């Protein structure tokens, strides 16, 4: 194929373009490609964490990983946690955004207060919630017993399914403000005449929500679900600090398993293999999700 000859000016422009994107490409290689490649490389070795010494084992790490029951339990926990906390975040988030979008006199105050859980450091938040959930001194048990709902203190973090429900709720509390802010920003850009036209066309409040608000929120919800799913799937500190993965491994997700392999069991190669598999799973989900949401749009 004979490419048309470039003029000197065009060549100068493309050179400038290359120079301008070069730093980005270099940084991208340094911070994304290099760690990724070295993690995959590391996962092919058996490495003792304290000395970082070890030998080539090929795909042996992956074989024992897929054969171990702990991997499958952790994966299942991870999916339950992600789906549960994400669903609650979106539900609370959209609901709260709709409430704040109304003309409430305390709206600006409420808007800043709503961000509070998102800003609080996870360590602080977890400490507070652990006290709330504490089976002996916790306020939750105290209140529930005073109200006569329960006769005996409930162990919220040490038994199943209580522990999973507790971390899902705390995760929803901590991260729903993100959904509120994103949805609220979008709500404010929906043109008012759309709602007025719908009122004239005979749509009641519920029909207006489903026929106008929800379709208009679709695109922002796709982005929110995508981002929050990635972040929730790899959530470490909140779960680690709340339950440490317990009771036994009932709330242990893949990030906690990676940590355990690397620093408790001192098997760095194995930890790298878990991390690579985790990334592959997220990738598959993301591709499927993006495909499906694309298809539904014209």
């Amino acid at each position, binding site marked *: 194929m004979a490419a048309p000859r470039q003029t000197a000016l065009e060549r100068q422009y493309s050179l400038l373009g290359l120079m301008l994107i070069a730093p980005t490409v270099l940084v991208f290689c340094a911070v994304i490609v290099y760690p990724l490649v070295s993690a995959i490389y590391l996962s092919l070795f058996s490495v003792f964490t304290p000395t970082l010494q070890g030998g080539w084992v090929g795909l042996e790490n992956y074989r024992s990983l897929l054969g171990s029951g702990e991997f499958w339990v952790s994966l299942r926990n991870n999916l339950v946690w992600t789906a549960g906390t994400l669903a609650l975040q979106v539900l609370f988030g959209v609901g709260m955004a709709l409430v704040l979008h109304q003309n409430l006199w305390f709206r600006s105050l409420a808007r800043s207060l709503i961000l509070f859980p998102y800003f609080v450091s996870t360590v602080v938040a977890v400490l507070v919630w652990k006290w709330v959930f504490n089976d002996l001194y916790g306020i939750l048990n105290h209140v529930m017993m005073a109200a006569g709902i329960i006769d005996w203190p409930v162990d919220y973090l040490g038994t199943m399914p209580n522990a999973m429900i507790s971390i899902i709720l705390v995760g929803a509390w901590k991260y729903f403000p993100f959904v509120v802010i994103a949805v609220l920003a979008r709500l404010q850009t929906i043109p008012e*005449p*759309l709602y*007025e036209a*719908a*009122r*004239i066309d005979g749509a009641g409040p519920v029909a207006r929500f489903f026929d106008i608000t929800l379709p208009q929120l679709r695109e922002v919800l796709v982005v929110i679900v995508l981002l929050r799913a990635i972040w929730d799937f790899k959530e470490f500190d909140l779960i680690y600090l709340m339950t440490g993965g317990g009771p036994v491994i009932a709330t242990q997700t893949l990030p906690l398993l990676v940590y355990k392999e690397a620093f408790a069991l001192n098997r760095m190669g194995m930890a790298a293999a878990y991390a690579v598999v985790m990334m592959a799973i997220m990738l598959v989900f993301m591709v499927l999700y993006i495909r499906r949401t694309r298809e539904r749009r014209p």
Partner: protein
Amino acid sequence: MADVEFRKVRKAWGAVVAVDDLDLAIEAGEFVSLLGPSGCGKTTTLRMLAGLDFPSAGEILIGGRRVNDLPPAQRDIAMVFQSYALYPHMTVAENIAYPLKKRGVPRGERGPRVAKVAEMLQLGPLLDRRPRQLSGGQQQRVALGRALVRDPRVFLLDEPLSNLDAKLRGHMRAELVELHRRLGRTMVYVTHDQLEAMTMSDRIAILEGGRLQQFAPPQAVYAAPANRFVAGFIGTPSMNLIDGELAAGPAGPEFRAPGLALAVGPLAAGTQPGPACLGLRPEHLSFGTGPLAGTVQLVEETGHEAIIAVTLGEGGPRLVGRSPAGLALRVGGQVRLALNGPAAHLFAPGPTGRRLNAPSPSGAVAAAAAGDQP
């Protein structure tokens, strides 16, 4: 019986009074324009009729029924918004079918009705597209289609043509008139464009500062403006308005201003001499011969005619007139001119000073035009 009626309607937002003391009765099948400058309360009036805003006082009736407390969906109206307000995620067909769907019209009945409207508006090939894949004119048609499909009693249109280019606007004007003729429904049309109001309406309601200035057929509004505001607002180039004095002359009433004394036609009974305003349309100036002398300020040749601005005498009033093309005039030069005194309008002082002319002969034009109405 009037199809749409406003009785002493007032709308205030805090201290801002958008509409005040509005009395308006629109007959069934009439095409009425609400005309006025930006901010005069046209949209507010229409929105109160639609049920999107609520009057602070007064009553609104549609078909003899008081609708103040009825939600928009139960008023038997349809509205076309200035921004069209098409549902962006629905196809053209779904947009048009939406009002039917929300009123519980069965699915099987919706299809034929949408098809009928689509054919009337030539939307057939576009039915599967989404609003963002349409041009402005096509979106406009879809908005019309969504209003038409329900066959409502009253159509409300808020500056529906203002987002179109000039050529398309002319075309859509003709189409709307044709549509109105075919449907025979009451239409209330908001516009700030006097050309639209003059060419399309049966009657024009002219609003200013939230108050109704005149409600009359286009010819009457032009020939016998009810007050000084209407006189200056209607007509391009606008009417010459000269402040001066009304006095008793040797042969009847005379209007006097610096450099000008003009015998004027019969005045309304009870008119007293004193400060007044003379209004003279540009076509009532004639150039070339006449008792007056003016200095040419500006000549705009439009091809078939010329718009000429002159000042009378030394520092006298500035007048704009039209004259057939071909008059050789030089800016800065002198020209003789005559004013058609009997055609002049006279108004009381003040920005909305009332008309002082006797109701005829120009009033006869208004009466004849009004007689044409249903």
